[in-house]
């Protein structure tokens, strides 16, 4: 599909380019007929030399940086009366190529074709001992596994390190290839029928990790296959008149994961089978050192299908208002067969006479099932009425609802095998989380002056949730805004918004009895009564925004933006079991703030030279209160002196400056640009003095990454249709990231707890490159 689409597009490009060239040279077409045609296009051939530290995957994360000749860009446009053809190709035959083509008759129809390749490169420093077998399994040399099993823990660790020295490189990357076709047909005046289809392939590998032996925390990281296809199609019909409109759209999206694993002659869809580096034979928990499975069965994303139907209608009310309504029904389904609980044959049968199964329903009277039968209905309605009945008065009234109605049955797992090592002994519930969000509100806008608008509004947002700690929450939101254009050369937009969210009740132990993740642990992991999850907690929010653009004359422009959003999760007054308010320590996110401002400036020194500069800074900060809860005699110990606080602060700054100059009008141009994007992240942790694990509360090293770019682009037009270019780009990416920089296949030297773990050791190195570029652009 993709190769065919690509070949068709390229062939079409070539054909039309040839046709255009022939017509340009054919004296027979120089008469009246040709004058009705407009044919134009351009082709840019570039040559680039790359110099410097260019080995980092980050340089080509989403693009190819070619070294040598390449077709940088090609476009072609043809029009005759109402008919037109447009073609555009960028970076043809490169990893990030993009081709677009369209053909149509204005007012009648249009067909669009597209093809796009987007690489995604995680890292090119990874190394692994795994090889992929024909069956899609990730396998290891049997002698190595025999050797490590025989050594057992802890001797296997140093030996694993020696094996990992010989790990072979693996590029962690995939590519997303998307082919699209869309068509639109004007059935009759203002009635349009359209359709679209896209086929997206993702092919490659990505890094995944799994815990191989839970109690020891051993980790195996592997290059997991990415073999995804997503097909999306839609048809729509619309009438859009001057007084009213009505439209409907029906769409479907099908995700298919072609990744399979196999074991002992059985194939498992949407899964990968991974050899255990430490064992060649199965063992039950506690029966041997490093007891675990010889192979792990890891679930990959399951196939799923989503369908939707949208209906939109609207009508103008007099000359001053409009009523619009939108309803949408959707359904997401996933019905994959369940994988086995484990490939570990040494795990004994559970005591439950029904065996180790997934039950549809509860533990006592559930029915064993082999497929998921997941289905979610989504429903949306939106109704709004807006208008300006008086010149100085406008309004908007709206109501909106989004319903994530999960119709998947409740399941109970009679038991499960943790980390492929052994039965856990706890039945678990898999609950169909569902939620519904309703927004209702109204805005009133006053216009005391022609170019001054003042608006105030109120909105209420309600959440209803199933199977979470809060069932209902309500947020009252008040809004105000000023939009002022005192003169044509300056505008100001300022807005403020404040919201207060409260829940009806917060049940910390909602699922304690239902054994659902993450709650439901037996005594040692009992829930923390003082904790409030930040996405559910009571919250006070304040948001301020300001944007001003000032252009006093044609030579000078100036803009400034400011944004500040603060959230305070204020749950200091909690309610005890008797409903009595009490003040306790509150754990969880306490507050966060995102604040930033930016300025930009341009100056036209004369008709030939424009100078510009911009600067922006944004800072995100959050405070989270936690508690270290050591386990003593099987119970978690709650002591307020074991509370600790984490303080996160991320700051990003962007500097930019440049000049565009016409050195010789219509002949020589020069563009010079430089920017620096500087990001820093701080993560501190503070313990209450005397806390039980104070030594464990350390400030993490600062994370920093900085992108610097400088470019010079000189263009010369010896002829009207010909442009020659000379360019230079310096690009530097400096990253200091302790989370990633430390990574090697064997991490036992950093954390002894990983002495028997095998990582990919993928890193993202810094780079700095010099790109020298020449180009020839010809317009026809």
């Amino acid at each position, binding site marked *: 599909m993709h190769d065919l689409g690509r070949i068709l597009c390229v062939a079409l490009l070539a054909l039309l380019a040839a046709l255009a060239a022939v017509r340009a040279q054919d004296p027979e077409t120089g008469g009246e007929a040709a004058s009705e045609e407009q044919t134009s296009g351009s082709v840019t051939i570039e040559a680039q030399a790359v110099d410097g530290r260019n080995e980092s995957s980050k340089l080509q994360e989403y693009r190819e940086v070619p070294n040598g000749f390449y077709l940088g860009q090609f476009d072609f446009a043809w029009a005759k009366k109402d008919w037109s053809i447009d073609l555009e190709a960028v970076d043809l035959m490169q990893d990030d190529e993009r081709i677009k083509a369209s053909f149509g008759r204005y007012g009648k129809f249009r067909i669009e074709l597209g093809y796009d390749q987007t690489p995604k490169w995680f890292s090119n420093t990874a190394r692994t001992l795994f090889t992929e077998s024909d069956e899609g399994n990730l396998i290891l040399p049997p002698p190595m596994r025999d050797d490590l099993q025989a050594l057992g823990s802890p001797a296997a660790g140093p030996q694993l390190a020696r094996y990992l020295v010989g790990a072979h490189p693996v590029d962690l990357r995939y590519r997303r290839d998307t082919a699209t076709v869309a068509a639109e047909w004007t059935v009759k005046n203002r009635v349009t029928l359209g359709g679209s289809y896209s086929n997206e392939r993702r092919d490659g590998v990505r890094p995944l990790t799994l815990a191989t032996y839970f109690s020891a925390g051993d980790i195996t990281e592997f290059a997991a296959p990415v073999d995804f296809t997503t097909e999306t199609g839609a048809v729509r019909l619309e009438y859009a008149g001057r007084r009213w409109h009505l439209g409907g759209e029906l769409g479907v999206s099908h995700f298919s994961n072609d990744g399979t694993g196999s074991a002992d002659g059985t194939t498992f869809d949407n899964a990968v089978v991974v050899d255990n580096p430490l064992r060649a034979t199965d063992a039950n928990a506690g029966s041997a050192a490093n007891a675990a499975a010889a192979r792990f069965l890891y*679930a990959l994303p399951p196939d799923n299908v989503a369908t939707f139907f949208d209906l939109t209608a609207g009508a103008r009310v007099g000359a001053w208002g409009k009523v619009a309504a939108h309803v949408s029904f959707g359904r997401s389904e996933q019905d994959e067969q369940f994988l086995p609980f484990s490939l570990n044959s040494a795990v004994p049968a559970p005591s439950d006479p029904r065996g180790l199964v997934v039950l549809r329903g509860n533990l006592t009277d559930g029915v064993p099932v082999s497929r998921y039968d997941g289905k979610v209905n989504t429903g949306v309605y939106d109704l709004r009425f807006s208008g300006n009945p008086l010149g100085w008065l406008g309004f908007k009234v709206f109501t909106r609802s989004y319903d994530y109605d999960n119709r998947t049955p409740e399941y109970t797992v009679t038991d499960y095998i943790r980390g492929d090592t052994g039965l856990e002994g706890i039945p678990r519930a898999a609950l169909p989380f569902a939620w519904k969000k309703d927004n209702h509100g109204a805005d009133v806008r006053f216009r005391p002056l022609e170019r001054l608008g003042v608006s105030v509004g109120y909105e209420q947002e309600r959440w209803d949730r199933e199977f979470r700690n809060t069932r209902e929450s309500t947020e009252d939101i008040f809004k105000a805004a000023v939009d002022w254009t005192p003169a044509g050369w300056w505008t100001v937009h300022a807005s403020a918004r404040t919201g207060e969210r409260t829940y009806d009740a917060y049940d910390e132990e909602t699922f304690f009895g239902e054994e659902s993740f993450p709650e439901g642990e037996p005594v040692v992991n009992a829930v923390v009564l003082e904790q409030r999850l930040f996405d559910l907690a009571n919250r006070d929010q304040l948001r301020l925004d300001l944007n001003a653009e000032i252009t006093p004359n044609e030579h000078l422009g100036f803009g400034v933006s400011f944004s500040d959003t603060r959230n305070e999760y204020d749950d200091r007054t909690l309610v005890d079991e008797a409903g009595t308010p009490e003040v306790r320590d509150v754990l969880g996110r306490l507050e966060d703030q995102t604040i930033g401002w930016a300025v930009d400036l341009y100056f036209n020194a004369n008709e030939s030279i424009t100078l510009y500069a911009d600067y922006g800074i944004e800072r995100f900060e959050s405070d989270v209160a936690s508690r270290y809860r050591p386990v003593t005699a099987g119970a978690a110990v709650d002591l307020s002196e074991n509370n600790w606080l984490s303080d996160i602060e991320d700051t990003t700054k962007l500097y930019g400056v440049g000049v565009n100059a016409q050195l010789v009008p219509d002949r020589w141009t020069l563009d010079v640009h430089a920017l620096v994007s500087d990001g820093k992240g701080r993560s501190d942790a503070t313990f209450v003095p005397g806390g039980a694990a104070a030594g464990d509360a350390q400030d993490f090293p600062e994370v920093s990454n900085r992108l610097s770019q400088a470019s010079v682009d000189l263009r010369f037009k010896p002829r009207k249709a010909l442009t020659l270019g000379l360019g230079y780009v310096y690009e530097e990416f400096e990253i200091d990231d302790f*989370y990633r920089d430390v990574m090697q296949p064997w991490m036992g030297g950093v954390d002894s707890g990983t002495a028997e773990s095998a990582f990919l050791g993928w890193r993202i190195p810094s780079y700095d490159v010099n790109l020298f570029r020449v180009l020839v652009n010809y317009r026809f």
Partner: protein
Amino acid sequence: MCRAAWIAVHALVLAAPLARAAGEELAGSAACLPCHAEAAAALVHRGADLADAECESCHGPGWAHVESGGEAGTIRSLAKMPAREAAAICRECHTAGNTVHWEGSTHEQHDIGCTSCHSVHNPAGRHPALLTKSSIQETCYGCHAMQRVQMMRSSHMPVREGKLTCTDCHNPHGSVTEGLLVDRSVNDNCYRCHADKRGPTLFEHPPVRESCLNCHNPHGSIHESMLVARPPRLCQNCHINSRHPSEPRTAASRFVFNKGCVNCHSQIHGSNHPSGIRAMR
């Protein structure tokens, strides 16, 4: 529809009611060209969509303007009109497709009009939407300067590489979703490219299912995977029950380096594995 009929529609249907209201008469485009040839030529160069339009389709009856010798104020100038009034003229034709939710939208409510972003006479780049700036991103950054800062962060979607634009996720002409998203919810928007996360799955992670924004910043982050913070701190916003989640941890720890908590709990978006209760399979 043939060209002549199309012109007639624009001239008569659009301009005629205005002419009746003002008691003015049409002058025809030919009367405009002697003075505004450059503006007309710019239109012609922008393809068939506007090449056939009569000047008075947008600028209204021009006879008074011609008679006055081009006196300012005798004809509509969209560039000098309040944005909402200029938008009303564009909306005479552009009512279909992704513009149906314009009335009452955030931009419309704050006096951002069509001419704030589009220029039919002097578009800055070659984008078919006739933008005032060279690209969609630059057009949006004109007001949303903080997004320019965010998009340049190290962990980002391929916007600056030209593979995505703001309008892949947002509809500036209005939508029924918060943030002017093109799809019906935050997650539905994300599933357009990340359908592998759509599920549902046997074991779900509720905050994931409610909003991807609980953990990710789609405009960019200094942390991998566009996370709003790095594990374990990100996870410790919610998971402090006991045992290993409740400890702050040191930097040289498998609970911190590489993917932190996700080193083991790698099915954080949901698992369909019967043994995947802890997001580990």
